[in-house]
């Protein structure tokens, strides 16, 4: 048994150097050359300043912006480090709500969100993704239905014709890959940036 100790130690060290240093560092180097934008986190700039990542959702609450999905991420309470406080779209602490289907807290929160959305747009059925928290709390997308649902509010807040805002949503619809994989969606940050650019012109 003693003679097996040497290979145990050596193999762990050898494989650590190979798979724990050489492999990830080589991948980092190659990625930086081949795909610098993606490797760096797909950062998005506006007027030369980084304002986020194309893949990471942001918290939108103003009427003039399309809103993303509810987010359950939290942050440590500045007043008491042993507690947490809600901090939607905290990209340094991804998390879902983990509320089960029979959770009273979940159903009450959804009920309040539904009431708010129905007041805003009484015509359409409320899309489920607008009242449920995403798994990561950082979902950058909403469904096309959820985007169209918000058109009246956004148009009113911006003083634009609904058709113009609707047209922007249509321009930002992303379909399924190869027509099969994934689900149709709209990137909220990209859509909002396009609307801002529209206003600036």
């Amino acid at each position, binding site marked *: 048994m003693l*003679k097996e100790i040497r290979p145990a130690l050596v*193999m762990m060290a050898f494989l650590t150097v190979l*798979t724990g240093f050489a*492999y990830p560092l080589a991948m980092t180097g190659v990625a930086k050359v081949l795909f610098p934008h*993606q490797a760096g986190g797909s950062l998005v700039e506006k007027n030369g300043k980084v304002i986020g990542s194309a893949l990471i959702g942001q918290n939108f609450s103003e009427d003039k912006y399309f809103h993303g999905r509810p987010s359950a991420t939290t942050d440590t309470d500045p007043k008491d480090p042993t507690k947490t406080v809600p901090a939607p779209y905290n990209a340094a602490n*991804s998390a*879902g709500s983990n509320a*089960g289907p029979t959770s009273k807290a979940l159903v009450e929160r959804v009920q309040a969100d539904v009431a708010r959305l129905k007041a805003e747009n009484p015509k359409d059925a409320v899309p489920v*993704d607008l009242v449920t928290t995403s798994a990561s709390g950082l979902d950058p997308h909403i469904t096309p239905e959820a985007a169209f649902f918000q058109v009246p509010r956004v148009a009113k807040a911006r003083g634009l014709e609904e058709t113009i805002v609707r047209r922007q949503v249509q321009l930002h619809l992303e379909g399924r890959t190869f027509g099969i994989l994934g*689900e149709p969606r709209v990137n909220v940050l990209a859509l909002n940036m396009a609307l801002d650019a529209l206003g600036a012109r």
Partner: protein
Amino acid sequence: MTSNGWLQIALFCVVVAAVVKPLGGYMTRVFAGERTLLAPVLGPLERLAYRLGGVDERQEQGWLAYAISMLLFSLVGFVSLYALMRLQAVPLFNPAGQGVVEEGLAFNTAMSFDTNTNWQSYVPETTMSYLVQMAGLTVHNFVSAATGIALAIALVRGFARRSAKTIGNFWVDLVRCTLYVLLPLSIVAALFFVWQGMPQNLGAYTEVTTLEGAKQVIAQGPVASQEAIKMLGTNGGGFFNANSAHPFENPNELTNFVQMVLIFAIGAALTNVFGRMVGDQRQGWAVFAVMAFLFLGGVTLAYWAEAGGNPAIAHLGVDGGNMEGKEVRFGIANSALFATVTTDASCGAVNAMHDSFTPLGGLVPLFNIQLGEIIVGGVGAGLYGMLLFAIISVFVAGLMVGRTPEYIGKKIEAKEVKMAMLAILVLPLSILGFTAVATVVEAGLAGVANAGPHGFSEILYAYTSATGNNGSAFAGLSANTLFYNSTIGLAMFIGRFLMIVPMIAIAGSLASKKIVPASGGTFPTHGPVFVGLVVGVILIVGGLTFFPALALGPLVEHLSMNAGTLF
């Protein structure tokens, strides 16, 4: 449920089935010690490893020596990973300035990655430095997977050999698996992932001012390199807390599809390795058929339940299925499929929060793990788990007709059946035992996030996942406490090593036996009757053992949900 959803699921099945034969052929050559295409590049590295370790690659080991090598290697891995986390404060690859990992959490995490579980009691982006993620966790993603595959190959050699004293050399199997199978596939997958949007950098977290003027800190890191082996090695430990639901860890439907294929690739291909090594590929396809049947059952139930949605929310006039804890880009079909795949294998990565699944949708992952993760299964662990059930099945068949059971030309005798039962019974003992304790002590109940039967499910899921070395969770449970870190750590140890040792003993015992030529009275183990029998044994053993616990959790919750009861 939509026809597009089913189309995506069907496409996944086709791709996995297409991978089985080519990858199986390649892996068979690797473990037979044959020269492969990559030998000119990797051969020198392989020989260097043997020279440094003082390993004679032609010297094979008996089952006991094989087991001791494996256990010593796992022990060294556990200690070194624990030490790395306890020394984390060193300012090397640590731009976020993560501090020392506390003892209980370091114990739990070291055990978790050493056993290929990758249960995570911590939030990675606020706990682990890039050094620990790379030199600790990524390394264990490779070696714990290679260990599992090596063990499965050793068991298959037991079936394939006649009157032999040895079952291979652990060090050779470990090195060849890492170098020739895991590393090349990971490199290709990692680069594909970066191309599709996954970060791969060593920079500090990016602080930005959002469109609305708020501060947002965006966690970064060498994500893609860890992600590739996390899937391929059925490890499942996320670079971020939200795991493969995080947009950086799974940016789009293509990466999602590839991740699911990677989870199943090696486990499915091992059935073909088995067939080739015992000289009859039909034996491998029979095992694959058992897996496919159980997989399709699981994904159908999960997809149906999730698409049906939560009546409490539908009553409010909301349109759509259950989207709580799911991402828009994956939707319901891909979330249900991923949940089934990750728990059929012992992966444990998630692209949606299982805790927020409907009761029956959440029952599927739970039950999959409780069956022993033999539906494709963890790399290696799935095949040896399934072969244990095959042994029990031929034993049951033998009892019915009064003949000494045989499997692949080997007489199955009392010793093998006893060892197989020992390995199988470890699972319910640990899962149900720990769950029972946690539901009566205060420290256990304190961690529960949801009230009512769902809270019980959270505890049951934790010990199921730990013992099954899966690593997924009903993540509402606050598991980063002394009680949970230590008991879950223990469950992971029991689930891995107390199953492995009897299994290698079977390998040694089988290898020493003569081959019995098939006769008219031999029960054929490559046909539909055998497949049906194994499915039956799996469901009866798994079903009867865990049914009472499932009745208290998901089943009663399902009835409550439909009756409109909230907790």
